[in-house]
C-alpha cells in the first residue's frame, strides 16, 4: 500500500467516528454540563442568574413535598421493577423450555413489537381499560361483583400496573436471551439427584443467568426514575414523580430548579451504572 492509501485507511479507521462524536459532544455532553452549572445557579425574575449557590438543593431538601416525591419515585420504581421481573421470569422460562423451537422466535417478536410502538398510546389504551366505563369495571359489573364503577385510575397502583405493562417486553426479552443459552441438562441432573424443581431453578438456573437478571433490573428501573407521563395521564397528578417536578419547574421557567432535580435523577442513574458496570457490559452486549 502506498502512503496515500495508508492515510485513507487511517481516515477510514477513525474518520467515521467524527460526525457522531461531534454530534454527541454538542448535543449530549455540553447540555449535560449546562444542567450541572444551572443546578448551582439561581432563578431570579424568570431569568437564570450566574451566581453560584446551593439554594436549589437546599430548597429541595427543605420542602417536605419534594423529598416525599423522591421516595415515592424510588418506591414506585422498585415495585414496578420487581413485579415486571416476577412476571417476565416465568414467561421467559416457559418460552425457552416448553415452546417448540420454531415457534419461539415468532412468539418473542410478538411480545417485543408492542415495545417499539407508541409509548404514549400504549399508556392511553389503559384509560379505556381501567376507566370508569372501561373493560375492568364493565366486566366486574356484568359479573355482579360490584354495582357501581370503581375508581381504578388515579392511584399509585394504577401507575405501577401501567409501568409494568410498558416495561414487560424489555424484561421478557432480556431474560429470554439469557435463559436461552442455558443448558437444560444441568437442571435435569440436579433433579435426578433429588432437588425439587423450584430448588433446582433457584440453585442452578438463576445463578447462571444473573447478568441477564441484573441487566433487566437496571434497564427497567433507570427509565422509570425519569417518568413523567404515566403519573400525569394514569395517576392524574395525584401521585407525582420526580419527572413531574422537572416538568412543573420548566413550565414556570424555573430552569435552575428543574436542572437540580434532573441532576438528582442523573446521579441515581450514574451510581447504578457504575455499581453494576461489570454485569451490564461486554457479555450481554451484542448477544455475544
Amino acid at each position: 500500500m502506498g502512503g496515500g492509501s495508508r492515510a485513507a485507511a487511517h481516515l477510514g479507521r477513525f474518520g467515521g467516528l467524527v460526525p457522531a462524536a461531534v454530534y454527541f459532544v454538542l448535543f449530549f455532553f455540553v447540555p449535560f454540563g449546562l444542567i450541572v452549572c444551572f443546578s448551582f445557579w439561581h432563578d431570579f425574575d424568570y431569568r437564570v442568574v450566574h451566581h453560584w449557590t446551593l439554594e436549589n438543593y437546599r430548597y429541595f431538601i427543605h420542602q417536605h413535598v419534594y423529598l416525599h416525591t423522591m421516595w415515592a419515585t424510588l418506591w414506585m420504581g422498585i415495585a414496578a421493577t420487581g413485579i415486571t421481573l416476577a412476571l417476565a421470569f416465568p414467561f421467559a422460562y416457559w418460552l425457552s423450555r416448553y415452546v417448540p423451537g420454531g415457534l419461539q422466535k415468532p412468539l418473542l417478536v410478538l411480545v417485543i413489537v408492542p415495545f417499539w410502538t407508541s409509548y404514549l398510546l400504549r399508556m392511553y389504551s389503559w384509560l379505556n381499560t381501567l376507566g370508569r366505563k372501561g373493560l375492568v369495571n364493565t366486566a366486574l359489573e356484568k359479573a355482579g361483583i360490584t354495582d357501581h364503577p370503581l375508581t381504578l385510575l388515579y392511584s399509585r397502583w394504577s401507575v405501577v400496573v401501567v409501568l409494568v405493562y410498558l416495561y414487560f417486553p424489555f424484561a421478557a426479552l432480556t431474560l429470554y436471551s439469557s435463559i436461552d443459552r442455558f443448558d437444560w441438562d444441568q437442571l435435569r441432573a440436579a433433579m435426578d439427584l433429588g432437588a425439587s424443581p423450584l430448588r433446582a431453578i433457584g440453585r442452578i438456573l438463576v445463578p447462571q443467568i444473573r447478568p441477564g437478571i441484573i441487566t433487566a433490573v437496571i434497564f427497567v428501573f433507570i427509565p422509570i426514575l425519569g417518568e413523567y407521563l404515566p403519573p400525569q395521564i394514569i395517576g392524574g397528578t395525584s401521585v407525582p414523580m420526580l419527572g413531574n417536578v422537572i416538568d412543573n419547574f420548566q413550565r414556570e421557567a424555573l430552569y435552575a430548579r428543574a436542572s437540580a432535580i434532573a441532576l438528582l435523577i442523573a446521579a441515581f442513574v450514574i451510581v447504578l451504572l457504575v455499581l453494576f458496570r461489570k454485569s451490564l457490559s461486554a457479555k450481554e452486549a451484542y448477544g455475544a
Partner: protein
Amino acid sequence: MAREAGVLSPRARAARGLLTGYGLFIYVFLFAPIVLLVLFSFNDNQYGSFPITGWTTAWYREVFGDYEIQDALRVTLKVAAVVTVVSVVLGTAAAFPLVRGRLRFPAGFRVTMTLPIMIPGILIGISLLVLFTQTLHFGLSWKTAVIGQSLYTTPFVLLLVAARLQGFDRNLERAASDLGANTFNRLRLVVLPLIFPAILAGALFAFTLSFDEFVITYFIVGSTNTLPIYIYTQIKYGITPEVNALASLVLLTSILLISLAFVLPPLFRLARRGFRSVRGRHELVPEAVPATEY
C-alpha cells in the same frame, strides 16, 4: 428443538400446562388494551367507551377531515424522514471504527454511544431545552425536535450495524482487493450490500421511533404539533372517540413499520442466498433487538 421430547412425568406435564396458560395470559395482558382501543374506535358511542352501541367509521372520517391532524401528520413525517437520514449516516459511519478501528477503549466508546438510550429521556429533553432556550437562544421548532430525536435514534442504528459488521468475514474484502477493487468499490460492491439489511432495519427503527417519540419532543418542539404531541393535548381532557380512531391508526402504522424492521432484513438475506436453508437461530431476532445490546 423440542427440548422435552422424551416422556414427561405427570408433574412435568402439569407444570407445562400451567406455564402455557400463564403464557397465554401474558399475551392477553399485552394486547387486550390495544385491541380494546381499536374496538372503541369503531364504537358508535360518543363517549368512546362501553357500552358498545353500534358500529361506525364516522370517527375515522373525522380524523381524515381534521386539518390540525393533517398538519401534525405532515410535521411528523418530515421530522421522521430527517431523523432517519441523520441517524443512518451518523450511526453507520460510527459503526465501522467501533468494530474495526482497534480503539483503545472499545467498551467505553460503546457505552458512551449508547448512553442516550440508557438514561431517562426527560434528561435529554430538559438539558436540550436549557441549551436551546437559555444558552443558544434558538427558537424551538421541528428542527430542534430533530436534533433531540436523532440523539436517541442514532445509537439503535449504530448497534444494529455494528452487530452486523462483527459477524462480517473480512476475507471477502481482501478477496475484492486482490481482484483489483479500490477502497470505494470494496465499500460499494462488497461491504454495503452485506450490511444493507442492518442499515434498512436501522432506518425503519429510527423512523418508527421518531414517528412515535414523545418524551424528548415534548420539551423541545415549542408550539409545533407532531402527532404524539397533538394526541397528548387531546387526551389531557379524557377519552374521545376521535382520538381512539387516530390512536388506532398511529398504533397500527407503527406496528406495521416495526414488523417490517423485523421481517425485511432476514428476507433480504434469504433472497440473496437463493432461499437456501438458512433457518438458523440467529436469523430473525438478533438484528432487530438492539434493546438488550447495551
